[in-house]
């Protein structure tokens, strides 16, 4: 049998267990006749084993807090809701995500619209605490949210469309505070308007629409603010409301 010469690379490949069985057997035969190389190989194998003994326990250490992948706070809040967890786990608005990796801005847009949808799903079913500040203190609510967002926000009047203001709350967003206004019609159907500051003060976008598992969202950017209107209603009706919101904010 003709054997290929044994190279340094062969010895390392043998240590790393990546040689085909036949070649590994040839190396073993070679090592039997070459005690110095055999000592080296056995030392290298021991090095690998020692590295694992020394450093593998780190794999099981609990992660320090600072190494948790930063997770949007809405996700943490959402985790309290088992149904919502399923909603996200089953793909959530994965459909929106599919093309998102191609363009960062597109990704960003779908991300905040998704946050708006999740915030809607989290807070709109609340019976006792749907909002932090009720509609009875509307002036205070608007002042407070404007102050926290650092921009003048308004709670549009949607009474003509049959929706009255329930109130609002402050939410954490990816780049600072976000406002959520909640509306409700006579049957208890709720809509939420999510308002965040956009990075670019002058950017404007057209209306975009996304729907997942019954929650429809119209979202757009106008005069430095991003708006997302979410509700579990028909697209035409949601559009009617979104248009009314847009008109009121751009008289």
């Amino acid at each position, binding site marked *: 049998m003709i054997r290929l010469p044994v190279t*340094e*690379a062969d010895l*390392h490949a043998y*240590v*790393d267990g*990546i040689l085909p069985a036949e070649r590994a057997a040839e190396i073993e035969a070679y090592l039997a006749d070459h005690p110095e190389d055999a000592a*080296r190989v056995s*030392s*290298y194998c021991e*090095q*690998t084993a*020692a*590295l*694992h*003994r*020394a*450093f*593998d*326990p*780190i*794999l*099981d*250490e609990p*992660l*320090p807090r*600072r*190494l*948790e*992948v*930063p*997770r949007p706070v809405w996700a943490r809040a959402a985790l309290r809701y088992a149904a919502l967890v399923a909603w996200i786990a089953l*793909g959530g608005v*994965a459909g929106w*995500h*599919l093309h998102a*990796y191609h*363009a*960062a801005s597109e*990704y960003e847009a779908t991300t905040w619209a998704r946050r708006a949808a999740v915030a809607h799903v989290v807070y709109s079913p609340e019976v006792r605490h749907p909002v932090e500040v009720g509609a009875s203190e509307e002036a205070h609510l608007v002042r407070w949210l404007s102050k926290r967002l650092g921009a003048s926000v308004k709670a549009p009047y949607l009474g003509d469309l049959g929706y009255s203001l329930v109130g609002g709350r402050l939410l954490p967003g990816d780049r600072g505070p976000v406002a959520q206004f909640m509306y409700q019609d006579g049957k208890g159907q709720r809509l939420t308007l999510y308002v965040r500051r956009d990075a670019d003060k002058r950017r404007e976008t057209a209306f975009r629409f996304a729907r997942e598992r019954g929650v429809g969202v119209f979202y757009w950017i106008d005069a430095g603010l991003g708006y997302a209107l979410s509700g579990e209603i028909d697209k035409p009706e949601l559009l009617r409301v979104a248009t009314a919101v847009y008109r009121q904010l751009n008289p």
Partner: protein
Amino acid sequence: MADVRVLMEEQIPRLRRYARALTGDRSSADDLVQDTLERALSRFHLWRHGSDLRAWLFTIMHNIFVNQARTRLRHQHEALESNAAVESMRAREPDWLELRDLESALAQLPHDQRAVLLLVGLEQFTYEEAARVLGVPVGTVMSRLSRGRERLRAVLAAGGNVSALKVVK
């Protein structure tokens, strides 16, 4: 599609293991992992979906590690002190002496040899994957592996006196 954060989270323990072995210091290792995660998150739109996330993260970590080499030299004094503090706290752990010997031996390797030895021996990257992570040809990986293992063997062998201390505990 799984959330990229979840995918990333799965890699953190291995990133920490590698960073710890590479830096030899708990807090600088976690700093390195944190920097890696932050950079990866800010750039994850550049990651090709479906490609090897682990290799991508290790590549980012390697680049940060190399770029921080100068800063690291400046802070070496502090690092040694904090290491000593951790050492005294953890001295009762059974594998500590071996870990300390191994860490001090690893510290005596040039960092390019150490990186190859750890990527291949500890993280079980193939030679080709390690070459991509480090941005060097496979031949370079092989020669660094060969020199690194031989040097580690020599250092550990010369450290026989240190090992004898184990008996005294």
